[in-house]
């Protein structure tokens, strides 16, 4: 019962924070709201008994990426209000389009009765031990391939970042 309340609370926090990311005029506020949203989602993970994911989520997104964002915003001094003026018509169109996709997706979800899967192993999947087992057994190949993906990204970052001696 308690978890239900916590779920609704976390959900409203997440939605509020996400909206504020869009609405805030100052970039730094957006970033901070985004961090809040991530925390709320991490809360959801804990509710789902996935503590490891929650921790990783906080470390990676809130910790690493958000800090990077904040530094970028601060170091480049981008925290200027109203830097990105949009025409009203574009705003209007964007709202309409976003609304439409929301309605469409809700429409599709509505017709589907989600079966509540009561699988004890799945309930425990978020734990480090189980996750590790799945990753290194069933999903070993995608897991390893991810290293290539990251290597590519890393090489790219180095390439774009370093000074070129032409």
């Amino acid at each position: 019962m308690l978890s239900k309340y916590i779920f609704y609370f976390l959900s409203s926090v997440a939605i509020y924070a996400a909206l504020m990311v869009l609405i805030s005029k100052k970039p730094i506020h957006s970033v901070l709201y985004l961090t809040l949203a991530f925390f709320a989602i991490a809360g959801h993970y804990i509710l789902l008994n996935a503590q490891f994911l929650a921790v990783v989520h906080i470390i990676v997104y809130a910790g690493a990426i958000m800090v990077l964002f904040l530094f970028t915003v601060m170091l480049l001094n981008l925290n200027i209000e109203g830097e990105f003026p949009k025409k009203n018509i574009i705003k209007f169109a964007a709202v309409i389009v976003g609304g439409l996709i929301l309605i469409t997706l809700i429409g599709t979800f509505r017709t589907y009765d989600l079966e509540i899967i009561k699988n004890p192993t799945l309930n425990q999947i978020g734990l480090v031990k189980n996750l590790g087992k799945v990753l290194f057994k069933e999903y070993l190949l995608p897991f390893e391939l991810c290293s290539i993906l990251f290597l590519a990204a890393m090489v790219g970052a180095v390439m774009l970042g370093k000074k070129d001696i032409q």
Partner: protein
Amino acid sequence: MNAIIALSALAILTMFFGVIQKKSVLLPLILSGLIIVFFLNVIEWGTFKHYYNEMFIADNFNIAFTAALILTTFLVFIFSALYYRTVKRPLEDIYALMLFSLIGGITMASFGNITMLFIGIETLSISFYILAGSKKFDVASNEAALKYFLTGTFATGFLLFGMALIYGVSGSFNLQAINSYIIANKESIPTLFYAGMILVFVGMAFKIAAVPFHFWAPDVYTGSPTLITAFMSTIGKVASIAAFYRLISITFLNVHDFSVDILMLFAIATIIVGNLSAMTQDNMKRMLAYSGISNSGYLLFAIIAMGPKSAGTLLYFSISYAIATITAFAVIMLVREERGTFSLQDYKGLAKQNPVEAFAMAVAMMSLAGIPPLAGFMAKYNIFSVAMNGGYVWLVIVGVIGSMISVFYYFKPIIYMYFHRADAHKKIETTKAYKIHILLVSILLIILGFLPGLVIGLL
């Protein structure tokens, strides 16, 4: 499987030799490495294996498309010497990224699990995003990279969402398992599943640059360094179409009735928009970008019809398209290096001054336009007949009209090269090796035109 492992090792080796500044070793290493990888790949022919819980499936389809991808990469690397001849530094990062994207492409051609598809697409795309911006001091290149990245991640978001929905409904990422789910619940598949399917299709359509998800392609292809454009427009397309085919043929074949009209919409819109837009271009690179878009439309025919010959025809079409495109880009690179722009005007009288290059260009253009007996003709003919056998007459009519229009723009460079007098341009000096390469590639295109049965019969 061995191909991927060897390729990873090759990429790392490439970077190592780059770090110790052995520039001269790099290209020979990569080329010979690619040949080895090719053979490692081909020896698995006929052995139907799957690795790691059906994550990776090594069937003949995978091996054939992997071979096509390696061949294409090989050709691109051959011409990279020309493109980067003024660059002093080893360029190991660019080469390694190209190899990484090849790995992504191979993964896309052989996945047995949707997660693998996603990782393959991401490996390919992320490498492409960076490669598109690899000309760091060129604004166009930067713009291309950013545009590609923004639109690409956007599309990836939809793709991932679609995958999640499919997983949510079917309870599995495994292609066969999803298929069994479909068969078991044929009558009661929820809308959610279809929504997931549509979103996955949207993501795939974005990758092959099918209208209306093609917007990134002309800008990115035009802005990127020419060699990378050649690479992206061939590897990206071939790998994506292979993935698309695999996805539908293994998983969604039993709900194909549902997807056919979406795919038909993609195909028809792609052919019309691609060809019409290409027609008014004076910029060769941009024209080829649109030509790539319109060719996606033809490729979709095989997926729509899903006949017994679809896979083989897809392979043949992909190879002939890739080779012709690379040939064309190899000449475009050369002309651009010498004359500064991509304008059609630069091709005036090329036939007199550089007969070999002009010949190769003409062969490539005619093949793309579908002039018999070149490979492009046989490819189009076969793909039309696949569609015809599937009963998609209207599709074929649109395709034929599209190719009629395409003759108009593909012949423009030929007319400029052969029937216009050169005004102020001098002969372009090229190395003998380049001449031989480009001649061999264009002859390959001619020979391929006589062997459609052989290639199509493979699958």
